[in-house]
């Protein structure tokens, strides 16, 4: 299945990209996706445990199983306002 991954702020700087379409195995969850991304972008290991998973515009537990077409991102601690 294919998912869309967005990168913002520190994630965008580390990966050097804002958006990625990625083919991942069925039943991939947030934890598995984190591993896949760390293999692709080794420097992301520095952010392990820092970002919160968001799936289709909502914060979601890392154990959330992703589905085809999902829009996924990792949210570093926010500092708006």
């Amino acid at each position, binding site marked *: 299945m294919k998912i869309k991954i*967005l990168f*913002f*702020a*520190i994630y*965008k700087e580390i990966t050097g990209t804002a958006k990625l379409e990625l083919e991942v195995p069925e039943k991939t969850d947030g934890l598995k996706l984190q591993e896949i991304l760390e293999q692709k972008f080794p420097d992301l290991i520095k952010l392990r445990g*820092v970002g*919160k*998973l*968001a799936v289709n*515009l*909502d*914060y*979601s*537990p890392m154990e959330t199983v992703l589905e085809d077409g999902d829009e996924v*991102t990792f*949210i*570093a*601690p*926010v*500092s*708006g*306002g």
Partner: protein
Amino acid sequence: MHIKITSEKLDTQKLIEMVEDDGAGAIDIFLGVVRNNMKGKKVISLDYHCYEAMSQKKLEEIVNETYKKFDVKNIAVEHRIGHLQIREASVVIVVSSAHRGASFEACRFVIEEIKKKVPIWKKEYFEDGETWVEGYSPDVP
């Protein structure tokens, strides 16, 4: 309800006019503005980055919750993104209510929730470098 994420300079007067109501006896305004230092270190300017679709959704959820919690008439919120200079407003929240207590409290609630939930990130520029400001790690349901 009015919610907007914009790269343009914020216009507080425009938002005041949006929340006006014949039954309102109070309009409360909160402005978040760019400060010239971070724990004593001189800040030159800063950038706000944003996950716009999710920020819009989270702002709507916050404002909807605020309407439920407080006896207010209207709420208008705008958050600026992009490059900002010292003294410029990054966020404006304007709330009208029949009596002042509700709009004060609602205004406070909105800004505190924004700081905890909305995916916006601030990067500060110093004379000798730059850094992402680590604020609040959002709660996951």
